[in-house]
């Protein structure tokens, strides 16, 4: 088991998803039990499903100097960076530490592949990319992180983590390692994934997409609803911001089982959970709330509900919020980290929207409707294809395990 880690301060955080732009909009939608899902009006060809689309992402115009980065994914990143005073906090950190001492560590599963899809839809007469699409930097997985580093003027380490649906959870771990080693003083973490035909038709081909709004942990659940989102957090040493909420721990582990199906006993998920609790110095009963991965896929929810049942007492509340946002894939980690932090800040346990007829495998921990109670410690689970599991532990300012 790893040593207990020194917590990090989360000095700014924000998310933009189908339920709104910024934290206040997210809190409002969660309190009002208002889903952001809508019938699919995005894909290049008809596909009967529901999606979590961010209104206006296509209308965002980047400054001329950043025009070479324009594409839906980077536009959504830009929109999200402008919420909750995030840019100003990064600028203050930059003035304090210097641009080379702040890392940009971002998760994404498909980056701006939507732009590559577009280039293929309108190849020029020679069969090559049209002139306006000849922008190599956006046709690569690193597009998002390179864009954000450029937009923020940061010159420290810059890394893309792309482990499917755990991507933007794992970047918290990258940041902790670099800060602990003294490579950096602060890190911008988070991630962005946007709707594109690759994921809509890809998950459809795997028969994992529901024709209705997704129903996490419902007995009749029949697949995911894909969403898009962007979110960011600024991490600094705890002594610089003792009044900020904390990253208490993180856990990472591999299933070693199957590329697109979770381990039947949730082995990797449980190893990631135990790793996170150990680094945080927590016992399971100290956890007040868990934001579950809860995709509404048959297997994920079954395995994850069983893990909650065997690892936590009923006082630990648990829910999936994918009925609100859809499954935002590589952005799910940061969106749900934001919701976990909102739960701590506002004492709101969001209800598990869509679970109207609970699967009997779900135990007493499940919060089917909103609950109001003090939350000191919250976890967020994120599991990805390839059996890639991550778990994050957050706590309110001043909490000591």
């Amino acid at each position, binding site marked *: 088991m790893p040593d207990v880690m020194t917590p990090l301060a989360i000095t700014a955080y924000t998310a933009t998803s189908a339920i709104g732009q910024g934290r206040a909009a997210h809190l409002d939608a969660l309190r009002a039990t208002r889903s952001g899902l809508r019938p699919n009006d995005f894909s290049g060809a008809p596909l009967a499903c529901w999606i979590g689309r961010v209104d206006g992402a296509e209308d965002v115009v980047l400054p001329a100097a950043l025009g070479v980065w324009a594409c839906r994914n980077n536009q959504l990143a830009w929109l999200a960076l402008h919420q909750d005073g995030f840019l100003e906090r990064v600028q203050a950190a930059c003035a304090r530490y210097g641009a080379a001492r702040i890392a940009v560590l971002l998760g994404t599963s498909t980056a701006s592949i939507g732009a*590559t899809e577009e280039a293929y*839809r309108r190849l020029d007469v020679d069969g090559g990319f049209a002139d306006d699409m000849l922008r190599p930097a956006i046709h690569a*997985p690193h597009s998002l992180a390179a864009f954000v580093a450029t937009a923020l003027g940061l010159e420290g380490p*810059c*890394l893309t983590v*792309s482990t499917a649906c755990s991507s933007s959870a794992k970047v918290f771990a990258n940041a902790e390692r670099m800060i602990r080693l003294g490579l950096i003083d602060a890190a911008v973490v988070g991630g962005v994934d946007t709707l594109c035909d690759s994921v809509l*038709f890809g998950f459809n*081909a795997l028969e994992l997409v529901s024709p209705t709004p997704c129903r996490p942990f419902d007995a009749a659940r029949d697949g995911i609803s894909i969403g898009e989102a962007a979110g960011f957090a600024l991490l600094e040493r705890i002594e610089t911001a003792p009044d900020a909420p904390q990253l208490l721990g993180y856990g990472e582990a591999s299933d070693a089982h199957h590329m697109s199906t979770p381990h039947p006993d949730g082995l990797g998920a449980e190893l990631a959970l135990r790793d996170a609790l150990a680094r945080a110095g927590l016992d399971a009963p100290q956890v007040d709330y868990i934001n579950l991965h809860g995709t509404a896929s048959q297997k994920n929810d079954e395995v994850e509900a069983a893990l909650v049942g065997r690892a936590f007492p009923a006082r630990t509340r648990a829910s999936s919020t994918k009925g609100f946002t859809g499954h935002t894939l590589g952005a799910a980690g940061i969106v749900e980290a934001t919701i976990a932090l909102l739960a701590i800040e506002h004492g709101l346990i969001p209800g598990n929207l869509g679970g109207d007829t609970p699967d009997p495998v779900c135990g007493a921990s499940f919060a089917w409707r909103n609950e109001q109670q003090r939350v000191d410690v919250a976890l967020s689970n994120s599991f990805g294809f390839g059996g*890639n599991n991550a778990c994050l532990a957050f706590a309110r300012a001043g909490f000591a395990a």
Partner: protein
Amino acid sequence: MSALRIYVEGVGLWSPQLADFAALQSLLGGTTPAPPPGRPAAATLPPNERRRAPESVLLAIEVAGQAVAMSGREAATLACVFASSHGDQPITDYMCATLALAPAELSPIRFHNSVHNAPVGYWTIATGCHAPSTAVAAQRASFGAGLLEAASQVLTDQRAVLLVCSDTAGSGPLGEVTDCHQPFGCALVLTSERSSATLARLDLQLTPAHPDSALDEPLAGWRAGNPSAASLPLLAMLTRARGRCQLAAAATLGLQIDMEKVA
């Protein structure tokens, strides 16, 4: 910041010209090695997986298997950092072409193989590895940024880490944009303490800029033709287990590597 000190216990390498690290040693020693067969063997994969796996997976698993074998370590104990600038370009080319013409015909297998962490996913499945695993990218700095992440894991958790950096050749219209002409993959087993298997000691330091270390031909040409071949200055240095080189760790950040032989 003091230097990050780590140790190398194993090296893997595969390109159309070089079957392994020994072939690079021969080449730099003045002998032209025999080129490997056209497809990486990837013997770590079970035969049925090997037949079906895309080239990106075969390439990564080939070099990973070489490095782990050289280290003598149990693969299942190693945390994994797999880096690639472009992921599986032939699959991206296939998916974008199919989506433009007949999206409902998209292959489910090719889609699940399209995730950036497909190679490390197959590796952990084949080796029964439950340790943390990740898949990263940083454009032409993918090797340097991956090395920095791997070194961070080695030192913060005091554990051995398998670093892989590989890219296949581009194909289709996308291939003209990525400008990636031939496959190249390499792997290192990195540790926090020296052992009887240690080949060299590395001291890593971040530097503001990164004048890429000079390389002689044919290595310079190979480096130009594949972003993962940015590792070649370090690999060449490993053949004599000493020296200093500079690699890109990000667009605006360099990584200076000082290497010493350990007796």
